[in-house]
């Protein structure tokens, strides 16, 4: 039986990674608005993903406004692919 990555197998983090896999860079405000989370909640999920090495964080300033941008790392992308393969294996096993 294929093992599911616990970092990814959490509904909100899965959605974050899927969002980031569709674009090259997304900032904190975009993720916040699209996912409909609170700032604290999103921050904690992003920290976990960053610790796992799945997302890369770039901090910058737009004028005087700080901006935090995220992108999926190569490891994050391959882990996400692996996760969906595992899900499909489980499903085919159940069928």
């Amino acid at each position, binding site marked *: 039986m294929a093992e599911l990555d616990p970092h990814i197998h959490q509904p*909100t983090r899965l*959605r974050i990674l*899927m969002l980031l896999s*569709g674009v090259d860079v997304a*900032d904190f*405000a975009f993720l916040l608005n*699209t996912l*409909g989370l609170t700032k604290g909640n999103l921050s904690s999920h992003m920290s976990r993903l960053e610790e796992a090495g799945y997302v890369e964080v770039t901090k910058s300033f737009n004028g005087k406004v700080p901006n935090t941008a995220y992108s999926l790392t190569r490891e994050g992308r391959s882990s996400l692919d692996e996760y969906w393969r595992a899900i499909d294996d489980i499903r085919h096993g159940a069928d």
Partner: protein
Amino acid sequence: MKRSADSVQEADGRVREIPKWARRYAQNRTLPVVAMLVIGAAAFCVFGGLGLLTGWAYVEDKRVLAAASMLVLCGFTVWWVWFCFIGFVRIIRSITERLYEGEGGAVVGACAGIEDSRGLVLAALVLIFFVPATLGLFFLGLCPIRLMQPVSALYVVPFLCYLGLKMRRVGSPFMFLWPGLYGIHAILDVAGVPVRFWGDFHALDIFAPMVGYGLIATLAAHIYGRVALRRLRALAASPESLQGAAGQSNGRA
């Protein structure tokens, strides 16, 4: 049990669609292009208006007015050059940030397609060669001026298509409407359909379709971007946020 497996599969299917709609949304954030077109059109109007005023004043022997409008035209040209090199990017960036402030930023292929810019530079050089070459044809009387737009379509349409193909990962597919409509306009013009501006404003034969179809294409892309964002938000709404909303409504009840 079967029903629960089906609903899990359906939820998976929805999550798997997120990257597609995120990409579509990011590709169709075209309001900065609308802003560029509007600024370009405004500059064209100022250049054209001042040029016409100068010419008219000179013909009517109003020397002071002619000299004054020529000075303003020179000043505007200098300012425009400065603006194109320094101010333009800054203003477009600030407009973009303001327009998309409520949504945040999402970029797809920030440098994709323009990493190898040799082809683009070559295409731009070809375009730069063709514009004065065709203008020369008209002014020398080698080509009737009524064919200005159809002749320009021979190089503008391939150029815009090439640009679209080169930037296909970054840009909206709706941008192909631009050369498509410009080409159709040229065909209609040659076929005798009255789509041409008459009088002394021959430059409008090229300018109006160029800017007009550009605006149509970018606005179509923008509208599609709104649809993509709505779809994306519906797909990506986190279960935690839905639980939070349900909790709040239960609390109110």
